[in-house]
C-alpha cells in the first residue's frame, strides 16, 4: 500500500513541480478558446433556450481540459520514463501491476481535475454558470479523467518514440474530443457526424458533465453514466491485461 502511495505521490509531484507547463499553460489555452469562440459565435449560436453560447461552451471546455490533461499526464510520464530508461525504478520494486495502473490513472485524474478547476476558476466570474446537479460534475470528471488516464497508460506503453505518441494524440484523442459536442450540441451537426458522435464515448462524458451544470443535455445523464462507466471498465480491464503480460515493459 505504501508502495502504491509513493508512486502516486511521485506522479503528482512530477506534474506539480512543473505546474507552469502542466497546469497554467492548458488553463490559458482553454481561456483563449473561450475568448475566440464566444466572441465570434455568441450572437449566431444558441444551443439551449435561455442559455448563452458562452455559458454552454464553458463546461465543454472544462471537460476537454480534464480529458486532454489526464491523457497527457500518464502518457508523457510513461514515455519519458521509457525513453530515459528510468522506468526501471518502478519496475524493480515489488509493485503489482494493479498498483502501477491505479497510481498512473489516479495521478492523471488529479492532473485533469486540477486543470479543469483552473479553467473553471478563470471563467466562472465572467460567465453565468449554474450548478443544477453538482454530483454529476464530480462523477463525470472522475470517469472522464480515468478513461483518458487509462488511454494515456496504453499509449505511453505502446509508443516507443515521442512522435508515435504525438500521432496517437493527434489522430485519436483530438478527433474524439473535437467531435464530441464541446463547441456545439451534436444535434446541430450534419447527420453523418451526428451519428458518429453517438459512438464516441467522449460525447457522453461531455454531455453528462454539462448536465451537471445546466440540468439539460442531449441524452439522459444516466445513459451517459452507463456508457462512460462501461467504457472505463472495459478500458481498465484491457490496460490491466496489458500490464499483467508485461507488454513492452517486461520484454
Amino acid at each position, binding site marked *: 500500500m505504501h*508502495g502504491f502511495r509513493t508512486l502516486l505521490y511521485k506522479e503528482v509531484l*512530477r506534474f506539480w*513541480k512543473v505546474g507552469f507547463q502542466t497546469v497554467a499553460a492548458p488553463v490559458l489555452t482553454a481561456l483563449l478558446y473561450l475568448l475566440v469562440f464566444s466572441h465570434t459565435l455568441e450572437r449566431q449560436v444558441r444551443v439551449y433556450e435561455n442559455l448563452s453560447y458562452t455559458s454552454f461552451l464553458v463546461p465543454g471546455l472544462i471537460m476537454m481540459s480534464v480529458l486532454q490533461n489526464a491523457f497527457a499526464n500518464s502518457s508523457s510520464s510513461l514515455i519519458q520514463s521509457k525513453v*530515459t530508461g528510468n522506468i526501471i525504478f518502478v519496475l*524493480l520494486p*515489488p509493485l503489482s501491476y494493479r498498483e502501477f495502473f491505479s497510481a498512473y490513472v489516479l495521478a492523471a485524474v488529479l492532473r485533469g481535475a486540477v486543470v479543469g478547476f483552473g479553467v473553471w476558476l478563470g471563467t466562472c466570474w465572467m460567465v453565468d454558470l449554474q450548478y443544477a446537479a453538482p454530483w454529476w460534475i464530480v462523477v463525470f470528471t472522475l470517469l472522464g479523467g480515468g478513461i483518458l488516464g487509462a488511454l494515456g497508460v496504453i499509449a505511453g506503453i505502446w509508443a516507443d518514440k515521442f512522435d508515435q505518441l504525438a500521432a496517437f494524440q493527434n489522430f485519436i484523442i483530438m478527433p474524439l474530443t473535437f467531435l464530441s459536442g464541446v463547441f456545439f450540441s451534436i444535434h446541430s451537426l450534419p447527420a453523418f457526424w451526428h451519428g458518429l458522435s453517438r459512438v464516441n464515448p467522449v460525447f457522453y462524458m461531455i454531455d453528462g458533465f454539462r448536465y451537471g451544470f445546466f440540468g439539460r443535455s442531449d441524452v439522459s445523464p444516466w445513459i451517459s453514466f452507463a456508457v462512460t462507466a462501461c467504457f472505463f471498465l472495459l478500458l481498465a480491464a484491457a490496460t490491466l491485461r496489458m500490464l499483467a503480460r508485461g507488454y513492452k515493459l*517486461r*520484454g
Partner: protein
Amino acid sequence: MNAAIRVRQVAKRYGKVQALAGVDLDVTSGEFFGLLGPNGAGKTTLISALAGLVRPDQGTLEVMGYDVIRQYRDARRNLGVVPQELVFDPFFTVRETLRLQSGYFGIRHNDDWIDEILAHLDLTPKADANMRALSGGMKRRVLVAQALVHRPPVIVLDEPTAGVDVELRQGLWQFVRRLNQAGHTIVLTTHYLEEAETLCGRIAMMKAGRVVALDTTANLLRLHSQHSLKIRLANAGALPERLAERAKSIAPGQFVLPLESYDEMGGIFAALQAAGLSIDDFDLAKPDLEDVFVAVMAGA
C-alpha cells in the same frame, strides 16, 4: 548453505539472437560472485531476468528461494540491482530519488539509512542537488544507493565501474566489500578483470548465452594460467638447449619460461650462469584472469 540465486535452464531469444541459451547457475548466500564475458554474452539479459525486467522463454529463476515471477514481491524485496545503463530521473534531487525508491519498497522514514548510504558513497554534499547536476560517476553512485535503500540481502552490480575514475572505483569496491563482509551476497559483472580477480571468490564466464566456465577464482587461475619467468638476455643471446626446449621465444633474446613453482628459479639462473650468459632484465608473471579469460573464450 542456502542458495541466494538459483537459475535453471533459462533461455531467452530476441528475434534471431539467442541471448540466453539454457543457463544454470547457483550463487550461495554470502558469496562474492563474478559474472564475466564479452559484450553480448548475455550477462545483462540474465540479470534482467533475475530482476523481473525480462521474461525468460523457458526456465526458472529464484532469489533467496523466491521464484521471480510467481513470488515476485518477495523476490524483488530480496534483490538490489545496479543497472548497467546510467539512468536517472531529472525531476528529483538525490535525496528525493532515494526516498521515493524506499517508498516503492514499502519503507517509510528511511532517512537514517539513506544518510548512511550517502556518507559511504561520498554523496552527502550532493544530497540536495538535482540529479541533472551530477557528474556521471556521481549518478552511478546514486544508482548504487538506490539499489541499497531496502537493504537487500542479494546485490547485483552490472558493470558498476564502467566510466568511473580510479579513485571512485576504489571507494566503491571498499564499500561493496564491506557489504559482503556484513553478509550481503554480491554478484558483479565487470570488464576490469583484475578487479574481478581480487574481489570475487567464484566466477562464471559466459559466452553466447551459455556459462562456459564456472569455478572458484583460485581454481580457474590454476587451471588456465601459470607463473612464468620472462628473461631478456644481453646481446640477444640464445638459451642453453635444456631451457630452450620449454621456453617460448617472444623476441630475439627474450624468452618466457613457464614455472611449476618458484623453486625452479634457482636452477634456471644457475644454468644461465653456467652457460656464461648475462641477464639484462627479468620479470615474474603471476597467473592472471586475463589469461584465463582468453583461454576459456578461445576454447569455448
